[in-house]
């Protein structure tokens, strides 16, 4: 007995249209960033404009979804995925806006991540049958009707966005490392130290919100399930992710680790985050099966 909210066909049409439009614009932005990166410098500003357009279109989608479901669009894989993509774009655009052109190269690595996440919501379910991304407008189950839902999910999408940005920078570092300082590819990328610091800032941002996510999740569980920690797989994977980034931050702070070792830790952290997000839902079972 699952409850669905009646939504008119027109409303569904506009919702889907804006989702497709936003996806297309994100991918277009990706192409422009990549073109900029492969030495056509004039494409950088263009890419930034298209990405902002994509972000606006995606915002419209989220507003339409909010109207259609009559609550925050934070529930189920489709809504969570969209909110997460939106937050990733937001965090990136904010840094780009602060740091200007210097940051366009990061865009060439960040936008493919967004494309990957969009693929998870659209193409992947067709290829892998166990992944089911329903677009149905579900009623909120009573256990989810809590103000903590909003804080918890907002923190988690910001945390995941930070980790995504850190991961994109880690890939840049690897590319830079492989290509060498002198090559054209190497020249197009910021200095390794700069990349490591971008990576650190993004990971630290993610870590703060991941911590808030875990804490608010515990408080919420405490009011609705009667216990703040149930050792359930989703909770454990969030904690595992947190541990990995804690190791990374310490290695950097105190041990002065730099280079490949820290880059590797950031990448492992991202894998743990993705597993918390998609792996637990489709491969492991638990009381979080709604997320």
């Amino acid at each position: 007995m699952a409850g669905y909210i009646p939504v008119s066909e027109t409303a569904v049409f506009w919702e889907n249209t804006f989702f497709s439009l936003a996806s297309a614009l994100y991918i277009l932005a990706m192409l422009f960033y990549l073109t900029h990166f492969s030495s056509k410098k004039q494409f950088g500003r263009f890419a930034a404009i298209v990405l902002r357009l994509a972000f606006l279109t995606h915002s419209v989608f989220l507003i339409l979804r909010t109207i259609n479901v009559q609550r925050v669009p934070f529930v189920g894989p489709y809504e969570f995925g969209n909110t997460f993509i939106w937050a990733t774009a937001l965090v990136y655009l904010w840094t780009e806006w602060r740091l200007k052109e210097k940051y366009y190269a990061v865009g060439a690595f960040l936008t493919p991540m967004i494309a990957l996440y969009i693929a998870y919501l659209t193409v992947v379910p067709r290829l892998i049958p166990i992944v089911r991304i329903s677009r149905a407008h579900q009623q909120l189950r009573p256990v989810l009707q809590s103000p903590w839902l909003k804080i918890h999910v907002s923190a988690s999408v910001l945390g995941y966005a930070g980790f995504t940005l850190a991961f994109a920078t880690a890939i840049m570092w690897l590319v830079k490392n492989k290509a060498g300082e002198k090559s054209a590819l190497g020249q197009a990328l910021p200095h390794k130290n700069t990349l490591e610091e971008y990576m650190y800032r993004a990971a630290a941002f993610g870590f703060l919100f991941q911590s808030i996510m875990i804490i608010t999740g515990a408080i919420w569980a405490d009011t609705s399930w009667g216990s703040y920690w149930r050792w359930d797989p989703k909770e454990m994977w969030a904690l595992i992710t947190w541990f990995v980034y804690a190791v990374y931050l310490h290695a950097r702070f105190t041990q002065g680790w730099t280079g490949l070792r820290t880059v590797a830790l950031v990448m492992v952290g991202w894998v743990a985050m993705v597993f918390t997000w998609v792996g637990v839902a489709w491969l492991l079972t638990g009381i979080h099966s709604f997320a």
Partner: protein
Amino acid sequence: MAQEKPELPQNNIDTFSQLLRFLSSMQLGIILLLALAFISIIATLGEHEAAVQNVYRSWWYLGIMAFTALNLLLCTLRRFRPIMRLAFQPQKNKTVTAISKMQIFRSVDIDFDDENNALNTAKEVLQKNGYKTSMVAGTDGSTVFAERGVWGYLGSLLTHASLLIILLGAMYGSLTGFEERNGGIAGDRFTVENGGFEVAITAVRMELEEDPTIRPRVFSDVIVLKDGQEVTSGTVSINQPLRFAGNTIYHTSFSYVSDITITSLQDGKGYKVQLWDHGQVRLDHEGTILHMMQFFPNFTMNQDGIPSSKNYLPERPVHAGLLIKNGRAVRNVFLQLNKPEVIETAEGEVELLLTGFQHAAIYSITRNLGRPILFGGAVLLIIGLYLCFFLSPRRIWVKYDPENAVLLIGGHSPRQKVFFAQELERMEKEISGREGE
């Protein structure tokens, strides 16, 4: 007799302090965190209940946690004074040599040759960029000292301390706490042994959602009694627990309880029973048993012949069960409201009649005295993390070298070195841009 000194060879002290150093070290911290992560990964891949029993609640897993707590505690204790000194008692006056050896060092050409003028310009620019500045006199001229984000130095200390508080709160909570399940229908009363109190349920109401296929909310009014005296009372529903003195009554689920009369058709004698799902009643001396399986408020059979409920509207209540003889299920029983069902038993025919049903609330009753500690720790953790990451602490020393008419600028920041260098470069331009104004 010559006074004997206790034999404490230097070696031993060294070993002890080395051990202490290792126990409070980051290396150990990293090893422990990685171990926890690794074991947790393995544990999540298996069955959940088994993982809780065999891993998360095992002495060795909790032991690693305790070891982690010890590591954190020692690190916090060891670093406390040095960090406080670092944060609040900086050396404001530095020599030219010291400045030139700093993490970031620049010498900026300037035109004017007056020390005061030059240093004041630097001071103004630093202030404009959010730095707290002061000027101190030294033997080799004055130094402008500037700092920003000093509280950031305390971030790691606070973060660690808050993690300890959280662990402590969790430990205290689980040592002094309990968790029980119980429940009932309106009029029921049950004792919570561990808590030493009684709970009386005075009413249970179900509120259907607009869409009746959605699981409805159930509200129950309860009174908590201790030695017959009311302690507190309130309404409990999902996400709305009743809390008192560290105890909490949570609504975890609801159930239907049916009223069934059982009448012997032989002698007309009958009696009433109340049956929950999975409740059972014995119908004769040979052990014929009525075992209820599930209650359906709006009964229907789907195409595959599986009973289900269309929604939560109480339009066609049916309690479905099994008739068990000699330990074997012999037939299904579907009790519909006010429709008698006749059953053959060893003592003759028996009539079963569903006369009504009620809603029951099921609670989880817990005590957690660690909650306020946990909550306090969580708030401190967020503040600590904020200090760690968003207040990148940095310090700048500026001196004037009259011989070469240059400003010597040295800076130090434990984190975000590249951004600090960029910031300094910007400020440097600002300073040289101001000369001659």
